[in-house]
């Protein structure tokens, strides 16, 4: 689909074409602003940004991992662990707690990466194991209890704004920008495509694939932990079940954004669109008071429809054999 756009638009400047997911984002934005008076207010739009920032931050890292041709199912659990640590360790000082929380993400990311690297087992299995295991770790640590921050300074951070813009939304957008530039402009970013697009060639070219993949697992671990800490600041608390199913929504958002599960193709701008699409759909349906039961069905149907549309365009573009 994106290929198609490139063909049409030729070699205009880097961002000269509109990714299909953004077309979708615009369509639903227009739809919901007609359906609800409150939808298109600044307050609501910043709300959407804050609400999507959690999945969004993880999705930034996930994009890298998925362009590598890997996947990380443990991000939801990492988020939960980081949130619990960032609240539970506040007796030792806020800085210690936050650092420990972020470190936990880095460490679990590194463990995932090292196992994938050293055993060559596919990431789906490795991180599925981690997803189960890290959740166990959270329960062992928290003993099933929710933690809460004793003073409100922590949760005030989550609600802070710079001008009219919520701090969390700004953090998310800045991270997205940085990750976009790293992917587009740096050696590591370019190698991400190389490793996912043709691992053998990357290996021959002297790119240390295992090390490279591990770094990306660490990156996604870090972002999952960061998302966990920031979510904890929104709540001033952490619950052991926090982050359940987030991996599924994250992967969904990244795929909606055009990143291929087979690796070698994807972008941060697309991921941003995918994350926003889900956030807007949820928010808009809330605004319209679509009952929760229908929201589940509608999200599922939309997801499948987008896949079908994307595929139809792709098949048309590649003129491939129908296998």
């Amino acid at each position, binding site marked *: 689909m994106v*290929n198609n756009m490139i063909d049409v638009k030729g070699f205009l400047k880097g961002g000269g074409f509109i990714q299909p997911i953004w077309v979708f984002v615009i369509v639903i934005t227009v739809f919901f602003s007609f359906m609800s008076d409150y939808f298109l207010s600044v307050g609501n739009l910043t709300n959407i940004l804050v609400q999507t920032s959690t999945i969004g931050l993880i999705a930034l890292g996930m994009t890298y991992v998925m362009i590598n041709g890997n996947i990380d199912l443990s991000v939801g659990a990492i988020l939960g662990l980081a949130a619990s640590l960032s609240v539970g360790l506040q007796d030792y000082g806020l800085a210690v707690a936050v650092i420990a929380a972020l470190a936990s993400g880095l460490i679990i990311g590194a463990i995932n990466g090292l196992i994938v690297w050293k055993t060559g087992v596919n990431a789906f299995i490795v991180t599925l194991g981690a997803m189960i295991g890290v959740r166990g770790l959270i329960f062992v640590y928290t003993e099933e209890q929710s933690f809460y921050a004793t003073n409100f300074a922590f949760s005030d951070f989550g609600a802070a704004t710079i001008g009219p813009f919520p701090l969390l939304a700004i953090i998310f957008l800045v991270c997205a920008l940085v990750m976009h530039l790293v992917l587009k402009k*740096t*050696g590591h970013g370019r190698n991400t495509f*190389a490793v996912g697009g043709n691992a053998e060639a*990357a*290996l*021959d*070219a*002297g790119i240390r694939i295992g090390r490279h993949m591990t770094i990306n697992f660490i990156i996604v671990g870090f972002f999952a932990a960061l998302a966990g800490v920031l979510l904890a600041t929104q709540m001033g608390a952490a619950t052991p079940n926090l982050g359940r199913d987030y991996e599924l929504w994250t992967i969904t958002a990244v795929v909606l954004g055009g990143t291929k599960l087979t690796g070698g193709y994807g972008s941060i701008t697309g991921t941003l669109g995918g994350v926003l699409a889900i956030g807007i759909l949820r928010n808009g349906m809330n605004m319209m008071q679509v009952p929760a039961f229908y929201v589940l069905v509608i999200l599922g149907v939309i997801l499948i429809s987008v896949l079908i549309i994307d595929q139809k365009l792709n098949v048309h573009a590649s003129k491939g054999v129908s*296998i």
Partner: protein
Amino acid sequence: MKTSASSRHFADHAGSVAPVLSLIDITKKFPGVVALNKVSFDVRPGEVHALLGENGAGKSTLMKVLAGKHQPNGGKIILEGEEKSFENPKQAKKSGIVLIHQEQSLVPEMSVAENIYLGSLPLKWGNRVDWKKLHADSTEILQRLKCSFTSRDMVSHLSIAKKQMVEIARALVFTPKVVVFDEPTASLTDHEKPVLYEIIKTLQEQGVGIVYISHRMDEIFHLSQRITVLRDGEYNGTVNTVETNEDEVTKLMIGRSLELDYASKPHDFKENMLELRHLTVDGVFEDVSFNVRKGEIVGMYGLVGAGRSEVAETVFGLRRPSAGEILLEGRAQTILSSHEAVEKGIALVPEDRKDQGLILGMNCRDNMTLSALGSVSSMGFMKTSAEKVVHDKYQSAMKIKTPSWRQKVGNLSGGNQQKIVIGKWLHTHPKLLILDEPTRGIDVGSKAEIHALIKELARSGYAVLVISSEMPEVLGVSNRIIAMYDGRITAEFDGDAVSEDELVQAITGQVTKAPRAAAVTTDDAAAP
């Protein structure tokens, strides 16, 4: 048995120029097998040194040792008088040894420049890519190679030949001292080869030593100064090209001389088996009309991308025709799937053995019976004994070398893999056999056997369509030759009365002869 030394000419090692690279007594062991046993080899600056041997003889292993992909268990690599050991391909590359791969080793969703500098992108502080320098340097290399594309083009948009150029461009990043070409022409068509030869010549003039691996004798004799032959992982002699001939080299390679039966093409044609009338798939090929009779071999010749495989895929039910007709034995057919094609007696030996032809993780027997499971099962249950009978039948008929039916086909050599694909299709008892590049990447021995088999099949009544990019192959087996260019049939020739020039012109769009529609049904002139 490997001493056919009587006819062996040892090359003059005391040549005037010292070798730029010498491999001395290289030994490489894999668990359970010695892949290379004390193999020595050298290249002089400005020389093309051909490395020959059957699949499995150890050529690729030797080159992988040279390029740092494998580490040898014994022996020395001496580059410009200095002993070297490479831990990875990048080190080898930095020392000036570059391997140009048989398989495309490019990253599709990256620009040409990024591919050329893969793994060694010029960086500024903060790990940032220095795009200016990257494109300037790449453009400079591309100009040296007289490439028609720019450094900013996406590799996924390039033709196969241009991709090959990118691979070669990559070799020039570090001033190379030795360049290894591993089957560089496998994916090139005849008219693209001269460009490659030109590049090799330029490199030679710059004093680069060239190692050239190929199965194609004509290329080797055209390009090389010396030929070294490996057999069973052992050094089997080096000869000066001018002092030898194809027969001698073949003997060195396989221990006997080949007797090719180019003369005995089939000649007893019967009624039409396949007939295409104005067949079109929008945007892929247009107005394709020709016929194949029972007992006849029709060759289809053209460049990669001319639409040949796509015609075959359409006949096999994998593409939907947007116009035109497919007739089998005179009756119009709609073939909606490969399954229907098989039921109608069509067999397709596909172009890409590993991706399209075989389930590599399955054993020989299971692959062999895969297209006709009904014949080896009853009530849906497999009859393993019947399966084994089928396997043994084709194994002995086609001399497939496998230790047992349990062997995974992924572990067989290319020639034997191809025979299994053919055996699989013969077992469906087809009436029309389409072979797409039946001998690509297969050593000479197996190649000749497959050619003989094709003719034998036609003689026994099969209608055979052979798609090939290799002129000798097309000329050698076909009764009639159909030339395709850019999705259209440009000409049709008598297989025994066509010149190479005519063929080349037809497939490069230099003639625009209207397809001979009349020939489709009744023209017997094509018959000898």
